[in-house]
């Protein structure tokens, strides 16, 4: 009953959190992305799959502002963001993780998450240097927030350990936690389970589900098809920088073009 | 007596500029040979030039060896110093980062400068010009014969380097190390040997620059720093890592310096080239011939 009601509310407010229109990306003469058009509905998990070199990570880099697209528009929560810098996009609520773990390895677990809280508070250089009381208050507040997030990702007891001392599975979780600390509306996860063993994969998968339950939209690039099929509400398939299919998992799974791309890509 | 017109004056500045620029280009080439293999900027590069000049003075003037023997002997000796530099200062560093490496090579250059001061003292030394000092007149401009030697040697070095890196196995191996050290060591290239070789090679070019410039501008123990700055500037101006860039950068730096000193103010002669360098960097952060893609692949 409650579930149904929620669904209706969502249905009525249904909106796209991210809209990508005619986006193209060229490096020198090489087209990495061709005429990308897609939408991400609010509150879902959408996966982007495709053979290696299909342009998935490039797409992430373009969406999150690391490469400005050569052409096209990207709208996040209704506003154009394709001209913005990465840090601006992040502070608007679009966060990401990296394919190869990019933690701040000169910091502790807690400090990593606290950097994620960077945009939550403002502080002037002078006020910080003179350690005005409000600075101390804000600092305590984000430390609490960061601890909450560590609890959510189950790393609370390791808060004081150096980030690079964690096993890979926990590093990946920490990176997700750090992304959550920015209070995103959309979280882009670049291969969150790559390199993880089965147990670690399960932990990560259930965490991603929990994130969706918190109302955060997830855009996922992943090679592990079991995870993708399991988690996603929608799947989009890229090949050679072009979208070749899009839809619910079952539909995509049986799409002849997709099968060909994957089988053809094996050689 | 020929009338000195403005045009001949400009020609004179150009020739002087290209000569100084050739020396800068040689220093820049030395920087790049090491940088391409190791990603280290060797701030002791200027010291090779100083040693080249001063050792040559010992062999050629003090010991009286003929030019054809003293020249190669000097180059070989300075190459040995280059090898020692790699062995004693660079290789032992356990946690290499751009900062520690910069500091290590600066330390080495201070050390080498100190040793040079103890051996040779603080006075400048002269060397006789290779083919005399009777100036040649060229459309009214006056050219020291030694200028031609300098420019000629730059051409010679450029040709030899391009043959070495494009057509010999060792040269190709060094280039492979530069492109991808991991892959290079996978296919059996001894990276450490290549690094050693890069130090030797760049010391040799530094020594040559020192030998040929001493008859023009004398040589003293503390000349290394300013040469290193100009050479480094040239390498950066051209785009760190690019051989044509280094040569172009060197010639541009030398020419700007010469025209700036002649036309605007000789007091600010060292500033002009650096101002142009800054301006270029601000508009094209990877230098004239450097590519952004390549500089992103480099660690430093």
């Amino acid at each position, binding site marked *: 009953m409650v579930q149904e009601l929620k669904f209706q509310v969502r249905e009525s407010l249904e909106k796209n959190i991210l809209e990508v229109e005619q986006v193209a990306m060229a490096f020198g003469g090489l087209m990495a992305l061709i005429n990308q058009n897609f939408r991400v509905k609010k509150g879902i998990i959408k996966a982007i799959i495709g053979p290696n070199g299909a342009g998935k990570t490039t797409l992430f880099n373009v969406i999150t502002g690391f490469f400005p697209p050569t052409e096209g528009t990207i709208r996040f929560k209704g506003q154009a963001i394709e001209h913005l810098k990465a840090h601006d996009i992040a502070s608007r609520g679009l966060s990401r993780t990296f394919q190869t773990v990019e933690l701040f390895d000169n910091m502790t677990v807690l400090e990593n998450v606290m950097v994620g809280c960077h945009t939550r508070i403002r502080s002037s250089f002078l006020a910080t*240097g003179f350690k005005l009381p409000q600075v101390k208050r804000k600092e305590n507040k984000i430390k609490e927030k960061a601890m909450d997030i560590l609890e959510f990702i189950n790393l609370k007891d390791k808060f004081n350990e150096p980030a690079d001392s964690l096993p890979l599975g926990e590093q990946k979780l920490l990176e997700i936690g750090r992304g959550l600390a920015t209070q995103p509306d959309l979280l882009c996860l670049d291969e969150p389970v790559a390199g993880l063993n089965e147990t670690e994969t399960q932990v990560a998968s259930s965490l991603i589900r929990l994130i969706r339950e918190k109302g955060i939209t997830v855009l996922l690039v992943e090679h592990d098809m079991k995870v993708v099929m399991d988690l996603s509400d929608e799947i989009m398939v890229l090949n050679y920088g072009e979208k070749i299919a899009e839809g619910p998992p079952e539909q995509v799974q049986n799409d002849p073009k997709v099968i060909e791309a994957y089988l053809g890509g094996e050689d | 007596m020929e009338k000195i017109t403005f045009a001949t004056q400009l020609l004179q500045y150009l020739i002087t500029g290209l000569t100084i620029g050739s020396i800068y280009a040689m220093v820049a080439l030395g920087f790049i040979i090491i940088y391409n293999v190791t990603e280290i900027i060797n701030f002791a590069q200027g010291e090779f030039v100083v040693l080249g000049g001063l050792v040559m003075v010992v062999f050629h003037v003090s010991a009286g060896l003929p030019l054809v023997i003293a020249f190669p002997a000097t180059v070989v000796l300075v190459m040995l110093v280059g090898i020692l530099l790699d062995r004693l200062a660079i290789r032992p560093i356990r946690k290499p980062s751009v900062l520690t490496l910069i500091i290590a090579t600066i330390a080495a250059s201070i050390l080498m400068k100190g040793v040079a001061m103890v051996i040779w003292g603080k006075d400048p030394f002269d060397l006789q010009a290779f083919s005399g000092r009777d100036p040649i007149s060229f459309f009214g401009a006056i050219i020291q014969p030694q200028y031609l030697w300098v420019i000629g040697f730059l051409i010679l070095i450029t040709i030899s380097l391009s043959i070495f890196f494009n057509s010999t196995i060792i040269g190709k191996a060094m280039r492979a190390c530069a492109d991808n050290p991991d892959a290079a060591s996978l296919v059996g290239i001894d990276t450490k040997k290549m690094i050693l070789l890069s130090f030797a090679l760049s010391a040799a070019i530094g020594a040559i620059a020192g030998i040929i410039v001493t008859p023009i501008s004398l040589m003293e123990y503390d000349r290394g720093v300013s040469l290193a700055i100009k050479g480094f500037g040239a390498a950066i101006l051209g785009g760190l890592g690019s051989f044509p860039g280094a040569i172009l950068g060197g010639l541009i730096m030398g020419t700007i310096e010469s025209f700036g000193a002649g036309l605007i103010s000789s007091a600010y002669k060292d500033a002009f080239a650096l101002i142009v360098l800054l301006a270029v960097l601000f508009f094209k952060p990877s230098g004239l011939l450097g590519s952004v893609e390549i500089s992103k692949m480099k660690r430093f």
Partner: protein
Amino acid sequence: MLRISKLPIAIFFAIIICFPWIAKHIPAIGHYPDLMVFAGIYCLITIGLSLLMGYAGQISLCQAAFYGIGAYASGILTVRYGMNPWLCMLIGMGISALVALLVGAPSLKLKGHYLAMATLAFGIIVFIIFNEEVELTGGPDGMRGIPGLSLFGFQFDSVNKYYYLVWAFVFAAFIFTINIIQSRTGRALRAIHSSETAASAMGVNISRFKIIVFIYGAVLASLAGSLYAHYLNFINPSTFDLFVSIKLLIMIALGGMHQIWGAIIGAFLITFLSYEWLHFFGEFEIIVYGGILLLVTIFLPDGLAGIPGIIKGWFRN
């Protein structure tokens, strides 16, 4: 969690406060307070440089230029225009901040060796200006007759009085910098050092933070320059040349650049080595200097401030 303990700071400054009294009673070190004034002046610069290089990971080879801008602002404005020294000090800091902003904004987009070259070039250009603008700066002969400092009628006219003045500034800068390090700003700087990509993905405005610390370092160096000018009453360009920038770099490398203490240790050590201890070597001083630096770089990559960490490591094994 990065915490800089308060006890060593308290002990250190207690020693600093007592030192002139101790030195008075030991003839062999009777002149040390004078050296400590210079050490303190260098500390101001290295504290800023340590934040820039050790924490934010950005190299600068032009700190001596800002040191010089402060000194010449104080010198020129007091001698030629008769302005109040404290006001001149502030104006110098303002000019340095402005110059740092103008040079830093494009430079700090450069990476690694390119940034090293840009700051190197800027430092040399400023040095040439000090030398050549003879009417303003007095050129290579320098500038004489810079007045001493006084506050509400109290003259800082003895070594000891000036000593306390300088060290009060060092103390303030040290605490201010520690507060920065242990804050959101400090974390952002270390994040930039570790991974610029990840830092910007967390919403850290990289260029803004780099410029802020660059300006901060410039302002501290400028303050140091003003203090130097009013102490010696004389300045000339060679105090602000490239070698001084390199020497400052060496200070924090020797002391250890990943810890703020390294800045203090390095400034002390190099000051005493170059003004006092290495004189014994005479002509060979430069060789010893280079040798020490090379050995530290090879064997103590985290500098002298890293030694406690190494010893702790031994005990753990």
